[in-house]
């Protein structure tokens, strides 16, 4: 049972794209001493246990030549290549870490060696690795540092500095059952708190005491798995304790007046909010009571109507913690989990689009300014993008919309938001319910030790040691397993005689524990844990129950339909196993090999969580607007804005995503004649023989949150709405989703900011009539450095909008279309440079944050949408980061055209008539429309009653010419200058 080692090298060492790409990264990070990197792929192959069919060297040579090495570009070496004229670094996965390539290779070897198909035993076991030969002047220590920073992630991989080939593969240790109790009945409050921390339960003392009381009443001690079950179910991640808490809120107002239309007008008063999310976000949806919202806040995703026959659903998740520790795996499983949420919505949905929004620290951060325990932000960004790319592309789901924001405060807590959108038959929109007697069918991937404690770990502050302590919380995904599972679920849903399952949900945070716990809330459940298929032996019953291994879903299946379902799964090489019953007894009972290891009252699991009252305070910060010397060179400022990473082109990211798979992407993320203009939103047409579409966009304004979280939230909502309107979305058929990422809300100030943002969500949703349909929060985004410094992320509220496009043939894009067309600006500009990128670029925040006028804004969105739906607008673009100057320039360079612009025509408040304000203020609810001379009169007529002005005209000469009443002439610059400044910063 020797282990064979196969190295796969490029046949031509000079033609090694991955080596060259790595070399580029080494340069970009400022690491010196490396002249060249060579790469090789490694396969370790071991015959299976039975010595009679041990592999021969000849067979391995055949495997290497025919299967592993490309016949044109690569060569295989058995053993170890002779001379290594450089430092050898090898990266191998730690035992037990998901290795999809190895699993596929084992199957292919069986085909190659002529093993019978469908044989349970494969002839070989495989492990994979990567080899890097670093040539140059670097010493051992430098090579180790480089490996640590760029080549490997020690939470899942091990590094070897010599060719690695073990004598044999580690065999899993067999697990011997032992029922473990966790005595708590006699512990003091302090001891309970210590147990919570030591056991990674992350429950507070009151919660631990509630559990203690329960078991005292039962007259027994809990088992380990009972305690784990309660910790999972009661985690912030799963139950959103903060958003549902009773809150004593005090608002200390600012001295100046506020926007008159604010429903939640601040006063110097205190109030008690019984349930924050219910009294703001849910309340708006419920009060709006729109007939096209079909299922909201009840299911894995929110569901709205597309047409009479179809519904669409959307979910946006955060996966911040796993992405901080292992950006590739964290981001991949983030999108994977969100896709499963969509698959498990209603009676089962087919995902047809994905979105991604990231927040990172500056990718140019010098190496020595990156705190200990933190991955360099450029590396984080690259690996996060790769994770989303590899999962979304492999699943065949187009990633069509997103955004990236940069702020140094995200350095220890990068944010990764993943969205997924699905389509399902309208009559299956409601969440299914498990019926008493239904079998519990576990479908998809196998259970391993990966991802244990993910739910609880994501519910606390991160420290520089988290990478070591919680590496087991890292999950690695396998998109193909999920794709296969999706293929089975859709077929099971669409059976001619009706769906094969009554209810479906995914195993996300908390694994089987939360999936079965939630689905069985009304019925109770009994689970035979030893029936769950395992990736390797040795898992305890508790580990099986709480593992967050990916690509698994739970179906509730009528016993009569179980054989059909299991057969269907087997036909597609998908594992499906009956692991228990929703038995109707109202208890959660877990068995392992005939022993009862948990027996909890389902009502206590779901309703036993104590609701403490929390304190929230919002003290408006004392800020002032800066006084800056008058601007001389407007073109230079505009160029510098385009070069800021938050504003710069994201094409390097966008093009790594397949944004057109499924053949439904009508408006793509990159538009214009050269397909490099930044589209405001994407539009998909999920039903091929229909002209109805779905527009997707986001709004997010973290910089405004430093001044006023209330206006930050309103601006985010307004921005998301502007974006969908710009492509042809109907604002009257637009729903929104909220994702709050906040610093730890045990700090009353942070909780106060959250209350203000939630209040804005209510006020905005009511005014715009945009119901919230789904949300998810992540409320402990702080990092404590090795020197004890506490870094809190900016208040970050992502608003995602999903909007019905009545007729995709009426869609438009933001690129300027033709010389001679008119440019019209719609909406009012105020003296609002607070939180703007213009001031930010000069080192200031200011105080005058843009305020959304909820009285006039809904009418402006409706008017613009009406013009677009009538076919009167050639292009439209929203004004956001960088204001008017950035918006108009983007339209021009996207269309390879120029324009003459006159600032005197910009409608504004009296105090706003300076060129800086008119060009760079980020006032809300503003659009630029391009209108042909033919439609000009009709447009002007329709806009009566709204603030608008004739901004200028499109010219064939691709220059931006700006005049103003104050200065007369501000600039005459080729738009190409700005395009180049915009394209290059993130052109990695």
């Amino acid at each position, binding site marked *: 049972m020797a282990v064979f080692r196969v190295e796969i090298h490029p046949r031509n060492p000079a033609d090694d794209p991955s080596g*060259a*790409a790595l070399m580029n990264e080494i340069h970009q990070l400022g690491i010196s001493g490396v002249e060249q990197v060579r790469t090789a792929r490694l396969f370790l192959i071991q015959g299976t246990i039975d010595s009679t069919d041990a592999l021969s060297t000849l067979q391995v040579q055949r495997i290497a030549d025919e299967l592993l090495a490309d016949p044109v570009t690569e060569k295989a070496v058995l053993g170890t290549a002779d001379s290594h004229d450089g430092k050898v670094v090898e990266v191998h996965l730690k035992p037990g870490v998901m290795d999809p390539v190895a699993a*596929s290779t084992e199957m292919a070897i069986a085909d190659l060696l002529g093993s019978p198909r469908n044989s349970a035993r494969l002839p070989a076991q495989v492990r994979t690795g990567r080899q890097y030969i670093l040539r140059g002047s670097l010493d051992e220590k430098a090579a180790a540092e480089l490996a640590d920073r760029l080549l490997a992630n020690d939470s899942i991989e091990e590094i070897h500095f010599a060719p690695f080939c073990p004598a044999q593969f580690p065999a899993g240790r067999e697990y011997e059952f032992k029922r473990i109790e966790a005595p708590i009945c006699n512990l003091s409050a302090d001891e309970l708190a210590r147990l919570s921390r030591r056991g990674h339960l992350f429950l507070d003392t009151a919660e631990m005491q509630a559990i203690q009381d329960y078991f005292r009443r039962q007259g027994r001690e809990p088992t380990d798995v009972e305690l784990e079950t309660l910790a999972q179910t009661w985690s912030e991640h799963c139950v959103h304790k903060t958003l549902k808490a009773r809150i004593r809120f005090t608002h200390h107002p600012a001295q100046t007046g506020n926007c008159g239309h604010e429903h939640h007008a601040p006063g110097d008063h205190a109030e008690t909010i019984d349930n924050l999310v219910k009294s703001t976000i849910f309340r708006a949806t419920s009060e709006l009571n729109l007939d096209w919202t079909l299922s909201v806040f009840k299911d894995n995703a929110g569901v709205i109507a597309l047409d009479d026959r179809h519904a669409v659903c959307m979910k946006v998740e955060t996966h911040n913690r796993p992405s901080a520790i292992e950006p590739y795996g964290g981001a991949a499983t983030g999108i994977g989990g969100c896709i499963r949420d969509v698959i498990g919505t209603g009676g089962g949905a087919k995902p047809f689009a994905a979105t991604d929004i990231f927040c990172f620290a500056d990718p140019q951060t010098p190496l020595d300014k990156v705190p200990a325990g933190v991955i360099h932000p450029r590396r984080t960004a690259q690996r996060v993008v790769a994770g989303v790319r590899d999962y979304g592309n492999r699943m065949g789901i187009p990633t069509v919309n997103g955004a990236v924001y940069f702020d140094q405060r995200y350095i220890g807590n990068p944010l990764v938001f993943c969205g997924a959108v699905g389509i399902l038959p309208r009559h299956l929109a409601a969440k299914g319910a498990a019926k008493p007697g239904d079998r519990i069918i576990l479908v998809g991937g196998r259970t391993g030790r990966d991802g244990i404690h993910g739910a609880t770990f994501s519910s606390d502050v991160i420290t520089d040691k988290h990478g070591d302590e919680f590496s087991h919380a890292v999950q690695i995904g396998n998109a193909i397993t999920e794709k*296969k599972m999706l293929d089975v679920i859709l077929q099971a849903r669409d059976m001619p005689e009706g769906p094969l399952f009554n209810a479906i949900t995914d195993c996300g945070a908390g694994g089987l524990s939360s999936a079965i716990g939630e689905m069985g809330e009304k019925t109770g459940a009994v689970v035979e844990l030893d029936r769950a298929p395992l990736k390797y032996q040795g898992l305890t019953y508790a580990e099986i129950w709480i593992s967050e291994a990916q690509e698994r879903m739970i179906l509730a299946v009528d016993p009569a339909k179980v054989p059909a379902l299991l057969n269907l799964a087997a036909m597609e090489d998908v594992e499906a196993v009956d692991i228990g019953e929703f038995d109707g007894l109202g208890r959660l009972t877990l068995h392992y090999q005939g022993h009862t290891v948990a027996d909890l009252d389902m009502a206590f699991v779901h309703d036993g969580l104590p609701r403490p009252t929390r304190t929230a305070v919002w003290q408006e910060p004392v800020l002032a607007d800066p006084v800056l010397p008058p601007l001389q060179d407007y073109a230079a400022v505009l160029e510098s804005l385009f070069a800021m990473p938050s504003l710069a082109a994201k094409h390097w990211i966008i093009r790594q995503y397949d944004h057109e798979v499924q053949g439904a992407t009508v408006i793509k993320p990159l538009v214009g004649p050269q397909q490099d203009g930044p589209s405001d939103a994407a539009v998909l047409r999920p039903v091929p023989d229909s002209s109805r579409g779905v527009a997707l966009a986001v709004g997010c304004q973290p910089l405004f949150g430093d001044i006023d979280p209330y206006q930050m939230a309103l601006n985010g909502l307004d921005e998301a709405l502007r974006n969908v309107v710009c492509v042809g979305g109907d604002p009257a058929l637009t729903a929104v989703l909220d994702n709050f990422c906040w610093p730890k809300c045990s700090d009353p100030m942070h909780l106060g900011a959250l209350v203000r943002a939630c209040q804005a969500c209510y006020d905005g949703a009511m005014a715009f009539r945009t119901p919230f349909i789904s949300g998810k929060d992540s409320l402990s985004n702080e990092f404590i450095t090795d020197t004890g410094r506490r870094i809190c992320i900016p208040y970050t509220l992502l608003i995602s909008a999903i909007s019905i496009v009545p007729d995709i043939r009426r869609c438009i894009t933001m690129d300027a279309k033709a010389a001679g067309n008119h440019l019209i600006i719609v909406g009012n500009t105020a003296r609002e440079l607070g939180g703007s990128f213009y001031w930010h670029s000069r080192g200031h925040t200011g105080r005058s944050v843009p305020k959304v006028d909820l009285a006039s804004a809904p009418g402006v969105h409706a008017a613009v949408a009406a013009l677009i739906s009538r076919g009167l607008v050639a292009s439209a673009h929203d004004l956001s980061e960088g204001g008017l100057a950035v918006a108009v320039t983007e339209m021009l360079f996207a269309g390879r055209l120029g324009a003459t612009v006159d600032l005197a025509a910009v409608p504004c408040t009296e105090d706003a008539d300076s060129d800086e304000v008119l060009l760079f203020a980020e006032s809300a609810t503003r659009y630029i429309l391009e209108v042909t001379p033919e439609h000009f009169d009709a447009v002007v007529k329709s806009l009566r009653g709204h603030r608008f002005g004739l901004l200028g005209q499109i010219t064939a000469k691709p220059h931006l010419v700006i005049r103003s009443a104050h200065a007369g002439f501000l600039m005459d610059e080729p738009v190409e200058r700005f395009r180049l400044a915009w394209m290059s910063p993130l052109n990695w």
Partner: protein
Amino acid sequence: MGAAEKGLDMASSKVSVLIPRTAGTNCDRELAWAFEQAGAAVSTVHINRLMDNPGELDHHQILALAGGFSYGDDIASGKIFANQLIHHLKRPLEQWVADGKLIIGICNGFQILVKAGLLPGPMPQLPSGDLFTGTLTHNSHARFEDRWVRLQSYSGVCKWIAPGKTVRLPIAHGEGRFMVRSAGILDALKHNDQIVLRYVDTAGNPAAQFPENPNGSTDAIAGICDVTGRVFGLMPHPERFTETYLGPDWTRNRSESTADGSELFANAVHFVRQSGTVLVASNDAAATAAAAG
């Protein structure tokens, strides 16, 4: 089924397309839709069923390998799917080609055809059995790339697209760089008129540089066929541009109706209809041979 019945079948029923799918196939639905719009009937069948019952192939005239990430593209793109074809369906596929039927592989499908030895396929210049002369490997810039490209068609033998056409189609791949084993292979491909599509610049010249040549392919090759012209593979996705509203810049030219991808599917369906008798004769011969064997 006798030859006469089969002939009747051909005349009265639709051209039948078989799309095999497996774990990670993900462009099968839009590919089916593209063929259906061209008037064909489509069956999408899991490769497991096909390996269980290769006789299923007899019911179809066009085999279409869709894009995606079959088996995750683990080891290399298309490799494991190709390995299955080689070890479980080699003979039926050789017979398929001998019968005069059509095969198209798009993106991952092209990678599968190349790695299974079906493209460039047997060449008169090479000893028989020397099949693995080309490959599709990692893009030069080592990233996945989604981009619309300009292409020109060159081959007079390919049944899927006539020479001299300029089309725009999207690519979306990480391993689309076409390479050959030697300069001699490239010469043979040219000589046999097997180079069907090249990436071209705006002037219509084969493109050497990124982004016009998006992956660094040798001789800007985007698609090739076998010596018969019936087996065709290409990296760009014609099934993603079968109507105006799927184009990259249709909002700029609203009066124009373009769908550069549709023509390939229409050509294939037309070819099968036209060559129905050939097919029947060939099927007949095969049936006779099988009966004799």
